């Protein structure tokens, strides 16, 4: 069947071919200006200024500073790769890398599946789904600092602490929580999962609405149970979203700062020092003027590692996400 489209070329993307693009490309600045192109530039300008001032210039400045010795008060001096060498020679760096990987692993084990399971369960609820969504999202709207202070109260290591009282009812504990180097990191992951799960649940719920219900009906006719439907229909249909949330989770956990900073300040005995907390310490814990060169050098290294990881991840999963 054929249809006749009377709209001018360029109005729909489908009708815009390479020839149109080439024609547009030949327009000179004068014709672009006469054609009103500068209007879009005027509208774009505030956004460009905001991005430049708050993102691009600081990023460029940070790259520059990673090759400098500076206290941001007196004149900087270029020191070549000294900052990078000093950071790599810091024994605490490897402790921080190990802790960050541990946090990321725990967050993947607990934080990644929990929102998915919660979203799947909530999608099956027929009544009051909005209420459940709101309840799931509630932790996200609690200011992070308030949430941490609240959880600090829960994590009171005394036998009268909230969690220890609950554990006491089933004959466990009391646990030292944040005061024990072995338990502190899992405790941070628990709070971080609680705080962040709501946003991911909402994403999964939105993605689940896009799954064609006829697939489930066909599976039911074929006698598929709930687990078969989830495994063979739901998860494959969500794979694009799952891939994105996975990489976002890795990037997010590699940059964890708030929880170790506010809960433990890296303690006990550096058991919760993460890479970002170490960057913060380089920059700000020496009151005689921070090591901003070291801090920006480590920031740059982290950014490069995450960028490489992301590129590798998308390359390896390209076939899966497009199949």
């Amino acid at each position, binding site marked *: 069947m054929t249809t006749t489209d009377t709209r001018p070329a360029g109005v729909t993307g489908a009708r815009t071919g390479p020839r149109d693009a080439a024609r547009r490309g030949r327009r000179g600045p004068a014709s672009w200006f006469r054609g*009103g192109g*500068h*209007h879009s530039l*005027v*509208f774009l*300008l*505030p956004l460009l200024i905001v991005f430049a001032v708050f993102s691009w210039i600081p990023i460029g400045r940070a790259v520059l500073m990673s090759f400098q010795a500076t*206290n*941001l*008060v*007196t004149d900087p001096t270029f020191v070549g790769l000294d900052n990078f060498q000093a950071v790599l020679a810091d*024994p605490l760096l490897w402790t921080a890398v190990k802790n960050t990987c541990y946090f990321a692993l725990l967050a993947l084990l607990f934080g990644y599946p929990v929102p998915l399971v919660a979203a799947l369960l909530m999608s099956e609820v027929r009544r009051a789904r909005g209420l459940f969504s709101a309840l799931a999202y509630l932790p996200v709207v609690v200011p992070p600092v308030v949430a941490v202070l609240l959880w600090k109260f829960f994590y*009171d*290591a*005394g036998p009268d*602490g909230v969690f220890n009282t609950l554990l006491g009812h089933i004959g466990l504990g009391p646990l*030292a929580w*944040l*005061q*024990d*180097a072995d338990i502190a990191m899992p405790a941070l992951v628990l709070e971080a999962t609680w705080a962040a799960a709501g946003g991911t649940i909402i994403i999964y719920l939105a993605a689940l609405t896009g799954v064609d219900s006829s697939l489930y009906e066909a599976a039911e006719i074929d006698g598929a149970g709930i687990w078969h439907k989830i495994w063979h229909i739901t998860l494959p249909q969500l794979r694009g979203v799952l891939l994105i949330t996975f990489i976002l989770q890795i990037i997010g956990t590699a940059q964890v700062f708030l929880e170790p900073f506010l809960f*433990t*300040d890296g*303690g*006990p*005995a*550096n058991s919760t020092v993460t890479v970002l907390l170490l960057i*913060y*310490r380089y*920059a*700000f*814990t*020496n*009151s*005689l*003027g*921070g090591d*901003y060169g070291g801090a920006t050098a480590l920031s740059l290294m982290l950014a490069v590692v995450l960028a490489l990881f992301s590129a590798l991840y998308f390359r390896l999963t390209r076939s899966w996400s497009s199949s």
Partner: protein
Amino acid sequence: MKPSRIIAATTAAALAALGAACSDEPDDGRVHLAVAMDPGLEQGAIDAFNERIAQFEDANPDIDIEAQEYNWTASTFTAQLAGGTLPDVFTIPFTDGRGLIERGQIADISSLTDELPYVDDFNPNVAAAGSDAEGGLWAVPTAAYGQGLHYNRTLFEDAGLDPDAPPQTWDEIREAADAISEATGETGYAQMTNGNTGGWILTTMVYALGGRTESADGGTATIDTPQMREAVDLLRDMRWEDGSMGDDFLYDWGTVNQDFASGRIGMYISGGDVFTPLFTQNDLDPADYGLTALPLDGADSGVLGGGTLAAVSPNTEADEQAAAVEWIDFYYMEKLTDQDAAVADAEALADSGQPVGAPQLPVFDRATYEQSLEWVDEYVNVPVEQMTPYTELIFDQPLLPEPATATQEVYAVLDTVVQTALTDEGADIDALLAQAETDAQAAMDAAA
């Protein structure tokens, strides 16, 4: 008007408005000065501070003072210094004075401080903290302290201890902590461990036991010593054998003050001048408060001392620096040297219910200090009799300065030592101290 011109005009107007909003203070011919005020003060303390500003502005009509909340902590100070958001006049600890001066990170006001009538009267050891190599006074010493043992008299009574006879030895501190913990369920003895305060207090204990954390020339770390071992062992005994140190081993200066003021801690070590922030920021009940001197044990033992310097931002102009020195002289110093100023300051504080007479150490000499206390005697409203175990001894105890080289970095290394000792029952203390000495030496070498 064409739409594009309307857009351009609107954008220009918005940018102009933004620029106006970001402009400096009003050009009224006066010098505008932002001065540090402690954050989180009770309303009475804020009123007292504002009263002092009003008095200053009356005497100096060409200067406009604006209070800016500021409290020195290592991390926030560094960020504010780099970001240029410090008040024009702010305070720093003695330990940072020389380093900031050498790096040119505070304003050189030495030509202005030279004009102060009492500039040659400072205790030389105190003045050195704010002076450059040539002796120019870049930062004015405003207060000095020696560490003390703060205790809760009510918890002492609840535990059957005599609050008028506080512990005089480290063994007695341990016994009192155990008794308090057993009788009340509260923390008998608490130790700061976080944000470099762990190193600060551990160094205090080592000094009191006759040790040091670095050699006299500041070049060699001396962490793995018998005195350090004794201090760590004492903490471990209280923590693991007696169970008298409670459940929180991540205290810093703010949180330990908070828990002490709320009656959850029996004893802790901190600066001898901490009564004022305990009262003005943590609502301490003065009836609960007791202060005694630290037990000194060993030939070279002494009390770790420190103090506060008033400094001026490097971003200030000459007229602002002159006004800043006027303010420092008026607010911090006149009450120490001038009877009328001392009385005016004490009256303003007392009228607003703020503490007057909390113990300090002299920045000049003991006679000048005691003279200044006599001037304000009728306004003293802190329970000085509850602090006599400290004030009767502190002037006779040798006062030792904090470690000079890489102070904060070495304190950070010691944070790890004390945290490990208190959270890991099976910790290998020998290995811990050996590693700490290596790390401290590396930090000192890097700072040299």
